[in-house]
Structures are given as C-alpha cells and as structure tokens.
C-alpha cells in the first residue's frame, strides 16, 4: 500500500505542484503521519478483509478451530451461490431501495417547501413554527416506537410499506439545514420575478430550487443513508417476510443459518455492497453532505 502512495506526490510535484500547494514536501513529520494513517486504515479494513476471506471459504474451513486467512481447501464462491439461490437478499435490497427512495423524496419535497417559507416569507406564526421545529430536533425516535406502532395498527398500515415510510419523513434538522442555505441566496435574484408577478411557487421551483442543488443532494444522501440502514422502526413495523428491508432481513438470517459462518459473511457483504458502490461513485457529494448537514447543529 505504501509504495504507490509515496510515488504519487512526486509525480504531482513535477506537474501542478508549483501552482497549487507550494510547500508540499514529504517531511519526516508527514511520513510519520502517513505511517499512522496507514496503520489505522489497515485496522479499519480488517473486518472487511476478514469477512471477505470467510465468505469465500467452505463452511468446513470457516468453522475450523484454527484461524486462517488462506483456507486449506482453497477459496470458493459456494456461500455466495447459496445465498443467491435463497433469493432473499435481492428482495430485501429492493425493499430497502424503494422505501428509502420514497422516504428521501417525500422528505425533500416537504422539507424544502417549509424551509422556503421559513426563509423567505413573512407570515403570522412563523417564529412559533420555527421554534417548534427546532425544538423537535431533540426528540429521540426510539421513544415514539410504542405510540407509533399503535397508530399504525389503528390506521391498518402495519405490514404495508407505508408503515415503514411515513414516520421516517420528518427531519426537523434537515428543514433547518435547508433554511440556512436558502437564507444565503441573494434576494435580488427573486426581485425581478416578483416584479413580473411570478407566484411564490414559481419562484421556489424556478429560482430557489435550481440554485440549491448541492444542499438538496446533501440532504437527500443523508436521509437516504439513514433510511437504508434504519433497523428499529422497520423491524417493528413489518412482520411480513415479503416486506422486510435489508437490515431486518439480515437479522433473521443469523438464526436461520445457525453457525454457517461463510454464508453469514457472504450475506453481510452482499448487503454492504450497494451503499459502498454508491459511495465510490458519489464520494465527493457524500462527504460534503455529511460535512454540511452534520454541521448544521451549530
């Protein structure tokens, strides 16, 4: 790992170094930092590596009492084949995908609308509304599971996807993040449109939203990751095997397979794959998303 990373900066030096970062040299301190950073990275990658090594073993090798990175009977994709034949992982992935997408879409629409009102429109009761929304940030979702479950029973939504989706679309913190972003958009941009008699909705959709793409993407990513990985509420809201999301489905697999370590790890890796792939594609946006939306608390 160390060799390619060490050669990179020198290559960069010859091309663009002079322009961008004038004092970028590999000092002793930097090399020390690199060693420590690499050490932590290795520690952090071990669980992935170990799970992968196990997933490609035969069950016998995985259950052998001696820990081995290189199994005696060689690597095999048997566990993955079995998990796939099972058919559950694709179903659960699909369930996770469409519930998370629905949650993200509804969250974005309703949060952007209310954030726009809070940012740009002077209306009676705005301060109260703002205070209530900010105050609701501290409500921990787990304390609502009991009444929410009862509410879903009463609405006959238990064992439908709506039970998973509906309670997850309220993100007061995200409203706040969007409002702060809208606040920074210069009012002059809207004034011409107001003079022309454009409606609020038109200003919102044609001026504000296009300018807010980065923050909308950030909020979308943040909400999507949260919904995708949520365990407690989907676990309570659905018993129907056909509706299970990935995290809830995986929880059932553990007991079903008993001590089949290779299959367990293969399932876990397959479940991890979609978001890791998404991350590889949208690395920059995701990092920005966490940084901007996460920082909103200040």
């Amino acid at each position: 790992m160390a060799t390619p990373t060490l050669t990179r900066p020198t290559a960069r030096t010859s091309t663009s170094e002079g322009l961008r970062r004038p004092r970028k040299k590999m000092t002793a301190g930097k090399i020390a930092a690199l060693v420590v950073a690499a050490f932590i990275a290795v520690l952090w990658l071990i669980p992935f590596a170990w799970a992968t090594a196990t997933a490609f073993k035969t069950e016998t090798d995985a259950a052998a009492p001696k820990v081995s990175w290189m199994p005696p009977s060689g690597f095999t994709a048997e566990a993955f084949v079995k998990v796939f034949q099972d058919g559950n992982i694709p179903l659960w992935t699909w369930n996770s995908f469409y519930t998370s997408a629905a949650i993200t879409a509804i969250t974005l629409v309703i949060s952007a609308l209310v954030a726009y009102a809070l940012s740009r429109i002077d209306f009676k009761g705005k301060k109260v509304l703002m205070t209530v929304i900010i105050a609701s940030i501290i409500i921990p979702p787990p304390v609502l599971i009991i009444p929410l479950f009862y509410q879903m029973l009463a609405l006959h939504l238990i064992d439908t996807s709506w039970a998973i989706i509906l309670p997850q679309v309220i993100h007061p913190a995200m409203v706040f993040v969007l409002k702060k972003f809208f606040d920074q958009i210069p009012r002059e941009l809207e004034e011409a449109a107001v003079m022309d008699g454009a409606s609020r909705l038109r200003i919102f959709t044609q001026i504000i939203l296009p300018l807010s793409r980065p923050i909308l993407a950030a909020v979308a990513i943040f909400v999507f990751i949260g919904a995708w990985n949520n365990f407690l509420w989907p676990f309570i809201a659905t018993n129907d095997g056909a509706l299970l999301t990935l995290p809830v489905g995986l929880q059932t697999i553990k007991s079903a397979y008993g001590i089949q370590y290779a299959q367990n790890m293969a399932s876990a890796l397959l479940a991890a794959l979609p978001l890791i792939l998404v991350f590889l594609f949208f690395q920059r946006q995701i990092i920005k998303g966490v940084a901007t939306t996460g920082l909103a608390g200040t």
Partner: protein
Amino acid sequence: MSSSLASRRSTGQPDIATATQPQQTRRPSQSRTRSNLSGWGFATPFLVFFLVFLVWPILYGIYMSLTGKSLTGANDSLIGFANYAEALADADMWRSLGNTFYFTVISTVPLVLVALVMAALLNVGLPAQWLWRLSYFAPYLLASTVVSLFFTWMYNPQLGLFNDFLSKLGLPKVAWLNDPNVAMWAIVIATLWWTVGFNFLLYLAAMQNIPAQHYEAASLDGAGAWRQFFSITLPQLTPTTVMIVLLQILASMKIFDQVYQMTAGGPGGSTRPVVQYIFETGFTGYRLGYSAAISYIFFGLIVLVSVMQFAVTRRRSA
C-alpha cells in the same frame, strides 16, 4: 403536493381580488394576507406529517402511559401515574438506564478522540487522501446488522480474529460477548469502528475551513507542527468539538441496534440498554402503557441532558 398548494392558493384569491387591484400594486395589508396564506401553504405538507407522525404519537404516547393498555387489548382505562410509579421502582429499568449511560460515557471519549486523530492525520496533506478517507468512513455506510455480523464473527471465542490475535501475543482468551465485564467494551469497539467516520468527516471539514494564513503566520514565527496543532487547530476547532460531543452523547443514548443484535442485552442483562427495555416491555411483555411510561422517563432524561449541554455551551460562548 403542488396541487394542494394550488387549491389553497385559488381559495385565497377571491378576497385578495376584492380587496384591491391584484398583483402589481402591493399594499401592505394585502401583501400581508397573501404572505400569511402562502407561508402556511408552503408549510402545510410538512406540518401534516409533523402533526400526524410526530406530535400525535407524542401526545398519544403520554395518554397511553397513563393507561394499562396492552397489546392483548386489555384495560384501556386511565390508571393515572401508576405506570410511572411502577417504573421508578423497577430495578430492571434503572439497570437498563445505567447501561445506557455507561455506554454513552465510555463510547463518547474514543468516538471523539479517534475522530480527531484521524482528521488531524489527513489534514497534514497526505497523498492518497481518498484511500484513507474511504477506509475510515466506509463502515459508517453499513447497516447495524452487517456490523453486528462482522463483529460477532470476529469476537467468536474459538474461531474469532480477536482471540487469535490475543493468543499470538501469548495472552489469555477473552469471552468477548459472554463476559459481563467485557461485553459492553466489545460493543464500544464495534461502535467505534462503525461510526467514528462520521465524526472524522465533521472534524476534517472544520479543519479545512481554518484559514491557511494562521498557519503561515505561525510558521514564520517558527512554530512547529505540534505547536501549530495545539495553538491554532485545536482552539479553532472548539465549536466543532462542542457540537460533535453534543451530537455523540445524544446518539449514544439511543443505542439499541448493535446491542440487540450482538448480545441481545446479555449476558445477564449487563448490556441491555433502555431502548431495548422499552421494546421488550412493549412487544414481548405486551405492556404498551408501561412501555410508554418508560419511554417518557427516558425522554425526560434526554431533555434534561440536552438542556444541561445547552447551558454549558452558552456559558462557554458567553
């Protein structure tokens, strides 16, 4: 969504039209009415969800906590504060609250410090930033179930990686998830691996916002890297640190997933957090009213912690 707005708008239109000439001439009273209408119009979709799926459950939960309601349908009548009285005398509830606080205390420190170290390392300007960032952050993208499967396997007393490593060092094996003295720490290690990447990114973003001139001035004055870190970076990060600690405490107090999946609260209830106790009294014990009462005691404590944190931050910034 937009259709409901449109209809709201059109019902509002007539009285505006009768009041004055429409649109172009904007008199204060007219524009105020319009603003009120459009303001609440834009807020309505959110408010509907907010009222139905947040405010109503909160209120209904309070009502439930005052009844003997159970999943089996018995006793819907009000019983006053009996549930609360029972909960306050319930050793299991106190134990689960204690576990939650214990986890919060012992997890917050490493989750903040390791994140700071990770960000400081990368802030030096290392090559292959993306690789380190990816390694530190990737676990955050996993579902708790995946993390639990990984770690249950690594903690396996006979076959697991942790004990293999210990025995290579000549140390005795540890019953990671089965020893009441160790289990919570095992969960902290898994949680650290899983979620530290989030705090790390917050720190990294904050560090990269510190103006370069500060460092340039300092290095002209002959300050070395350590000196710069302690005299510039750390002080500049104070608001970020405060925020990360606040967010982390609130997040840690909600712990449930990884405990439920790795130890199911065991051994002997030594890791059972309060959220799991709420879940169990409600869904396994069928006592919804009692469970709701415990929820509100927990909620009250979270509010208390938040208010205290808020007070501390205010005093510090004042």
